């Protein structure tokens, strides 16, 4: 299968504009701006079945179509490069190795929604990688790809790269907007949705870095071509981040619908030291865990939903028999407690409760009823909060405790860890 975004990963030459141009760079943008109407672009993206790759999987073309048409009001494109979901590192690879692909996607998406200003929000830790993107942007400006009157079409576009400052919650789209406005990242109540009232109260489209980066190839080869690469309702390819107890951690670009088994055993070369697979988180830390028996699932949005999990950010975290799942869950609990913005009581208090219960179990002080309480607290968070961080904290709790109950009970009742060391 021919690679799209990862074709030139790890080749520093590929970052340069000259290299990109030699490989048909900015030709899709030229086609979009000079031969297509915004509506035609949106229709092509709809046909492609491209879905949001930041986590929620919302159809991208449909999202763009929500932007008010024929209104003089300014609107914005915001690219989400906050990438803080544990287990996810694909957006970093994009801005490090193929920054111009993202920028070309930005140009096409901005034209399609009628935005003249785009903000790229990168997590603060990525300062080195954001600098690579900044260098690429400056190169592209100098070549006339950004700024005024692009390709002589009269279309103007400016792009600004903005650095976050260490807060997982700023990856949530409305918290990200607050952060861009210079405030702390407190998610907003929705509706109104950003497409109606987003940055500075203006219509705003927010997309993940990878989502936007697939736009140029869709315009170049057509939406139908892209859609055929994937499975029925999830078009194209995507970048799977694979980490944990695996021989070859890394980013693998494969069609939507590739089986998890294939990703683990064929591409990431299987388990280390002949260890047995125990558990896999399929789509970033917030998605429900799978057992070793469930890995024949196809990695697309529908197939994972059908077995009670989610594709999320496609951050695959692999755990072998040496992993203590009580400890693993406690690590995640602490993360969500630390990152909860504190606006909603169930999330703020619940993440603390769950972490304390897990810590107690882990240190041999677990008591009967702890697991019931853990699940009860998680259930009280789910669906009762402003943003999805609460759900993201609850889902691992419920799935770990349900699927690996004996391991937790062994810690509570026998004060014994069952992990194979």
């Amino acid at each position, binding site marked *: 299968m021919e690679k799209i975004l990862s074709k030139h990963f790890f080749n520093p030459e590929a970052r340069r504009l000259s290299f990109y141009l030699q490989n048909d760079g900015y030709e899709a943008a030229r086609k979009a701006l000079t031969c297509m109407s915004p509506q035609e672009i949106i229709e092509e993206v709809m046909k492609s079945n491209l879905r949001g790759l930041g986590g929620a999987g919302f159809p991208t073309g449909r999202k763009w179509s929500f932007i008010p048409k024929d209104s003089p009001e300014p609107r914005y494109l915001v690219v989400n490069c906050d*990438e*803080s*979901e*544990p*287990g*996810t*590192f694909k*957006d*970093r690879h994009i801005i490090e190795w193929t920054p111009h692909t993202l920028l070309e996607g930005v140009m096409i998406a901005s034209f399609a929604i009628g935005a003249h200003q785009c903000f790229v929000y990168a*997590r*603060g*830790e*990525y*300062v*080195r990688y954001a600098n690579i993107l900044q260098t690429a942007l400056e190169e592209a400006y100098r070549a006339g790809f950004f700024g005024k009157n692009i390709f002589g079409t009269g279309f103007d576009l400016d792009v*600004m790269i*903005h*650095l*976050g*400052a*260490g*807060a*997982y919650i700023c990856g949530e789209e409305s918290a990200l907007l607050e*952060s*861009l*406005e*210079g*405030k*702390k*990242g407190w998610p907003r109540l929705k509706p109104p949705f950003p497409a109606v009232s987003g940055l*500075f109260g203006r219509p705003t489209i927010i997309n993940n870095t990878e989502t936007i980066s697939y736009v140029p190839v869709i315009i170049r080869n057509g939406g139908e071509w892209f859609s055929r690469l994937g499975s029925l309702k999830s078009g194209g390819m995507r970048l799977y*981040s*694979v*980490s*944990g*107890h695996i021989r070859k*951690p*890394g*980013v693998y670009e494969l069609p939507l619908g590739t089986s998890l088994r294939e990703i683990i055993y064929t591409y990431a070369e299987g388990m280390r030291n002949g260890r047995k697979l125990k558990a896999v*988180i399929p789509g970033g*830390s917030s998605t429900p865990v799978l057992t070793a028996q469930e890995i024949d699932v196809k990695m697309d949005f529908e197939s994972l939903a059908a077995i009670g999990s989610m594709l999320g950010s496609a*951050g695959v*975290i692999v*755990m072998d028999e040496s*992993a203590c799942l009580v*400890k*693993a869950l406690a*690590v*995640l609990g602490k*993360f969500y407690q*630390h*990152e909860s913005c504190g606006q909603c009581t169930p999330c703020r208090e619940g993440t603390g409760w769950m972490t304390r219960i897990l810590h107690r179990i882990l240190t041999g002080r677990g008591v009967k009823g702890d697991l019931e309480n853990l699940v009860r607290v998680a259930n009280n968070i789910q669906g009762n909060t402003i943003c999805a961080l609460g759900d993201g904290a609850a889902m691992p709790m419920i799935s770990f405790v349900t699927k690996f109950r004996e391991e937790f009970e062994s810690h509570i009742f026998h004060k014994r860890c069952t992990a194979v060391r």
Partner: protein
Amino acid sequence: MSLETLSDQLLAEISEILAKHPQRRPALLPILHACQRRNGYISPEIERAVAELLGIPVIDVREIITFYTLLLPKPVGKHHLQFCTNLSCHLQGAEESVAAACRRLGIEEGETTADRRFTVTTVECLGACDMAPAMQVNDDYYANMTSDRVNELLDKLS
């Protein structure tokens, strides 16, 4: 007048940032980043000066500094060792590397050496789980930080 706390260089950088932002408040985070890059942390004096410059209450600036973990209200060592201990790094033994660094430097996690050269902290996922155990020293990422590699790195950093 607390604006004098800001060096001329920093003031120049700040006016450049302000020129890029049609509104002032969205410039706050970039300005605080600039202050921290120049001064290593954001002192109460800088906090006041920035508030004055933007015409906003000091508490608004304080609120931002306490919300975002990368903004530092206190100085750290010349080399800020930030070990990821989230799941993928934990699975590869991140805690051992933290312990190795602390042992070698004679400090606890969260502390700075007496000579102010090193600070050790633990952080959440760095978006570098392919490099697990991963760490960040100031702006740079480091991969596969086993105890041995931590010691090698500490030999190199001065």
